[in-house]
């Protein structure tokens, strides 16, 4: 899984702490997701989708292999 979280965060001008507050998670969780060390739960993915106003699949990009 690839993520565009860092790019979207930069687009909106948020730091990790600010995004973490908005998504109601810790900064560590945001950092882990950005480094692709953690696949977020559906709830956090939906919250991030609302914050950036982007569909989940445009934030988290899966390989065909992972989806089949």
């Amino acid at each position, binding site marked *: 899984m690839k993520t565009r979280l860092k790019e979207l965060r930069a687009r909106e001008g948020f*730091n*990790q*702490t600010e995004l973490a*507050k908005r998504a109601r*998670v810790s900064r*560590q*969780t945001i950092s882990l997701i950005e480094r692709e060390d*953690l696949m977020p739960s559906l709830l956090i993915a939906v919250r991030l989708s609302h914050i950036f106003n982007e569909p989940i699949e445009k934030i988290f990009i899966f390989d065909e292999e992972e989806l089949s």
Partner: protein
Amino acid sequence: MKTIGKMLVGAMIGFFATYTLLASDFEKTMESIGLEMTVVLGGVSFFLGLLCIMNIWQIKKKATASLTGEEEDLRDEWQYKKYSDATLAGNSSLIFAISTLGIALVTKQSLALIIGALLLVITTLICNTAGLSVIKFVYPDRNLPEASDKNYAKKLLAATDEGERHVMLEGLYSAYNSTNILLIGAMGLFIIYSVGSGNSQLFAILVIAIVLVTVNTQYMFKVRSK
């Protein structure tokens, strides 16, 4: 094959280490340097306790600064690392303090030294409690339990999110596996020592066995019931 090779090397190192211990009459050596060991271990414990307090003080000092952007993220990362360092220093300090008290009592040191070691245990316990309360400075916006709370560990776990749990799980699983291997190794060492030196370590062997069974049973019951 690699694992068997590693086990054989480990067994050989263990055998030679135990043989050296036995040959040097470990028990008598320990008795004769009881005072030095009490002072050195007490010193290490004191130093680590001091390190814990220094880390706590640095966290509190930096927590009050108002930062934004990248600097805020860097501060958070720094505080998290400092908090981990403070916890490690505090825990190690307490363990060394208890060892110091144990050595002072077993090797029959002077009353002043025993009282000093006891005070060190109490001080390091206070350091550990202070270390727990500093988490409120690191995360002032979060609903975290008080250090004095009876269910502190349970409530703290409940307050963590999935990323933090992911990190904790990785750390705890690795520590759990190491604990099992190291305690079984310690039992083996005690058995060899007891047989070789004639000084029975049966009590320690039984205590380790009980700890191992308790920890593994607790883990399995937790996993099985979910």
